[in-house]
């Protein structure tokens, strides 16, 4: 089932926090993939009617004060985002968005300063471990992706028991390829999902990998999967 030219794409909300700086890139990438993108300021209390997916973008919300994402978690719009996620709505967190989702306890683990203490900004090889969910369905047999990272606090941490549970339940959707872990993340975790599979966060930036000029178009596989899933969820009877 494909959208016709006149049919609007699924409504995808990109939340802008004070200090977000990838919200426009996310908007551009998602629009290019056919989404009807709404950029929503964090001070809004409600998501727009008909929202089919929410993206929390990269950046440095609230100057990364206290801990990355710790303050953005209490932005007015986050109450609606949490309710949307708990009702099964699709939520994607990229970089700072991933940090916000862990602080909001929607995703497991926490993100700590990079082991090197250096900001890293480069392309990394990634391995997709699950190609059936709403964030990776377009990957198909493409299990090896390349996307850029750019962060100072991307060292994902969880205790060993939690890591074992997440591995067993298939929630570690994305890992850094062997030898390419840029930040010291436990178990090479680059992205995790919640148990239900409707919330996903990752440190690499799919929105910066959507054009051959940028060095990779693999980000379209992640964002395109989200747009497909959002289209299906907005078409589903309520």
């Amino acid at each position, binding site marked *: 089932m494909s959208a016709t030219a006149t049919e609007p794409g699924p409504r995808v909300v990109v939340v802008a926090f004070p200090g977000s700086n990838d919200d426009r890139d996310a908007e551009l990438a998602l629009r290019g993939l056919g989404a009807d993108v709404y950029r929503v300021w964090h001070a809004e209390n409600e998501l727009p009617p008909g929202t089919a997916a929410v993206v929390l973008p990269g950046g440095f919300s609230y100057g990364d004060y206290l801990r990355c994402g710790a303050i953005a978690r209490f932005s007015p719009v986050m109450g609606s985002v949490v309710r949307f996620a708990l009702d099964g709505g699709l939520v994607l967190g990229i970089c700072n968005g991933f940090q916000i989702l862990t602080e909001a306890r929607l995703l497991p683990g*926490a993100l700590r300063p990079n082991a090197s203490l250096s900001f890293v900004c480069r392309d990394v090889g990634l391995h997709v471990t699950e190609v059936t969910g709403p964030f990776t369905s377009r990957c198909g047999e493409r299990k090896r992706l390349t996307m850029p990272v750019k962060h100072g606090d991307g060292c994902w941490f969880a205790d060993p028991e939690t890591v074992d549970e997440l591995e067993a339940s298939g929630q570690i959707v994305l890992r850094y390829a062997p030898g390419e872990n840029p930040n010291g993340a436990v178990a090479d975790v680059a992205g995790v999902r919640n148990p239900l599979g409707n919330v996903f966060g990752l440190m690499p930036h799919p929105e910066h990998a959507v054009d051959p000029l940028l060095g990779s178009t693999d980000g379209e596989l992640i964002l395109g999967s989200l747009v497909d899933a959002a289209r299906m969820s907005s078409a589903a009877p309520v």
Partner: protein
Amino acid sequence: MKATVLVRPKAGILDPQGQAVASSLRHLGFALGDARVGRLVELELATEDEGEARSQVERMCEQLLANPLIESYEIELHAAT
């Protein structure tokens, strides 16, 4: 009352800031083992009741000041002077 909250990286958690501080101190000629770097938060509370103050600050720590997955915290209370 006033409260001082000490937030520390939990034992066993990699603390790259602490490692960098320890390395710098060794370069300065100090002999030492580990260094761990945490955070200190000073609060002026609106209550003078110690029990109420402790309960408030504990909730502050759980909700915002510390991430219980990776950090532990200690609370000290002082009468406002």
